[in-house]
């Protein structure tokens, strides 16, 4: 199954409901909610961290966190 870490730049996915318990509370509070649309904007030069946009929040998270969060319905922008 795909995770945030497997998105390509510009791709959009939706956070899977089953990932809820894997999302750190802080990230949840910043808008990274199950069902939310998430877009990968940029990957840092050394392949980590990832620059994402979710629920209007622009955030950078590390790959280790991104790998834990599954996504569904990936579409190209």
């Amino acid at each position, binding site marked *: 199954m795909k995770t945030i870490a497997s998105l390509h730049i510009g791709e959009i996915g939706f956070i899977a409901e089953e990932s*809820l*318990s894997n*999302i*750190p*509370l*802080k*990230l*949840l*509070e*910043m*808008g990274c*909610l*199950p069902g939310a649309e998430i877009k990968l*904007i*940029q990957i*840092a*030069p*050394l*392949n*980590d*961290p990832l*620059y994402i946009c979710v*629920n*209007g*929040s*622009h*955030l*950078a*998270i*590390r790959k*280790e*966190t991104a790998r834990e969060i599954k996504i569904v319905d990936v579409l190209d922008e």
Partner: protein
Amino acid sequence: MSSINQTIQVALIGNPNTGKTSLFNLLTGLNQKVGNYPGVTVDKKTGTCQLSNNIKAMVSDLPGTYSINPTSVDESIVLKTLLNAKHDKTPDVIVVVADIENLKRNLLLFSQIKDLEIPTILAINMADQMKRKGISINLNALKEELGNEVVLISARKSEGIDNIKKAILTSYQEAKAFPLCNINHKIDAAYFQNLKAITSEYSLYELWLMITQDSYPDNLNDETKKKLIVFKNDVIKLKKYQHKETIYRYQEINTILKKTYTVDQSKATDLRAKLDKIFTHKIFGYVLFFGILLLIFQSIFDWASVPMDFIDAQFANLSAYAKKILPAGVVNDLITDGVIPGIGGVLIFIPQIAILFLFIAILEETGYMSRVVFLMDKIMRRFGMSGKSVIPLISGTACAIPAVMATRNISSWRERLITILVTPFTTCSARLPVYAILIALVVPNKKIAGFLSLQGLMLLFMYILGFATAVIAAAILHKTLKVKTKTFFVIEMPDYKLPSIKNLGFEMLEKTKAFVLGAGKIILALSVVLWFLASNGPKSYDNVEKTILENTSNTKLSDTELSKKVAAAKLENSYIGIMGKAIEPAIKPLGYDWKIGIAIISSFAAREVFVGSLATIYSVGSDDEDTATIKQRMASEVNPETEERRFNFPVGMSLLIFYAFAMQCMATLAIVKRETKTWKWPLIQLIGMGALAYLSSLLTYQVLS
């Protein structure tokens, strides 16, 4: 009652980058002061603001946070302040500052604050951007839905400030407070019913926060606390319910915003995307970052040197002038040799500190700093640090004290600890005067290739040495440190913004003031102590002059030569001379004499005292009436054993290395103790850095000479 003057407590809370501090500056103007929160050393900014003829507000600016569930030290301040609210005098009214573009996320914090049941106002900032961003808000409907006062403001354009003041006043007088989200209904009614039954003294949400955050009001009674702690046993349940709570809050917020807030996506500009392409580019991103660093350092060396030389000269003049007009005696000596050089020694840092703080404020305000964190995170992680460690390491070039405090937003304790431990290696501005004078003494003032100054290159080398040592030390700590901690990293990438000149000015003024007052006290006090130790001594001290006069009565010495000889002998027999001589055997292998020993001893309080104490030592020692600068005095100092200049190349280099590595700042040690809550880490710094300094200087001197 209306005739009595009243002061009410108002707290400003909001996400980072919402313009909360701009609003604070607008409300309070220059009536601000920086204090400390009780028990912690986070700066607490407070200011006063007149709300009506007889009601004044004491406004405090709380650290920026995304939620009241803290993940960093900064954020825990907000929670502590609010949980103690009802039984302390803070706050009567809370103003939640929100950014119009990220209203959804900002409302999460608002909904949490609201549930504390304290009168709250929602201030939506950047309202002037609405049109440009295609946003429209139905203000009346929003007020209705939230059941709360909402004010649109633009801190940048100073709009809506009077409305905020009015709203604060009204909320205070009405004192309406009720929760927005009833967490008990939606998650587990029975569970929250039991929780609520414990006490009616606190709102349900407050009780929920106490158990989830393990943070209790100071005056909570033991019995209630015991009952609450029972709820903490099921950690998995707590975590699950916290997740559910957040989702529930967002559901409520979405429902409200659907009715009141619309964004026309076609109006969205892609400026952010374009700038991000450049600033986070594989190559240009780093090139730009290092370019900016170079610009910062260039400005510290170059632009600051003019005002610094001016300050230096003014204090030399002032000293000479005071010496003339004051009656000769102890008071004259104290003022001209102790107090004036002491104050000058502090004030001379102002240009550098101010420029550095200005640059850091610009990088933060524009949103660029987050991009640096993004670029550097992977690299810094190899050394056990975080991308967020870059900010403390850059701030460290101004002063390690604010730098250590800037590590507070690193949520992983291990990454934070390593950053704290290595930050003092970066070249702080207190080292600069030491470097500057030593480099001027031992590196020839020549240019390579017509434009590169040799002295400038040496200074650059010292900066690189500082950073490199910090990184190597971090790598060693990363390998050896046995501290286990969960690492989690998230940083917001805010929109790019033009910084407001006013905010930059405030920021620079405030930080510089804090530094001068904080470090200044220590430096001034030490200057006076040094002067005393250098001009007094044990019993034999009083006979020095007589002995010299007797011994030289047959020789034909001129008056000046004689008085020089007396002064030198006096210094040698003073308390400080005795101390310097005591450590001379230990520092001789490094190329130092007892006078340099004195300077090193006094530097253990703060590095910059080195220059000041040498100045004191040589001005006492030479007893001249002229206005020679410290550098001239040092340059003319001769090593009696070799008949060579005392500050020759090997000695100068050895001293430079010593000052690069040694942990010679009491204020930093004290801050590290407070931040790490134990003496263990500052002691490790003191001993580790001291040993490194001694051995490296030994090696440097022995190889070069």
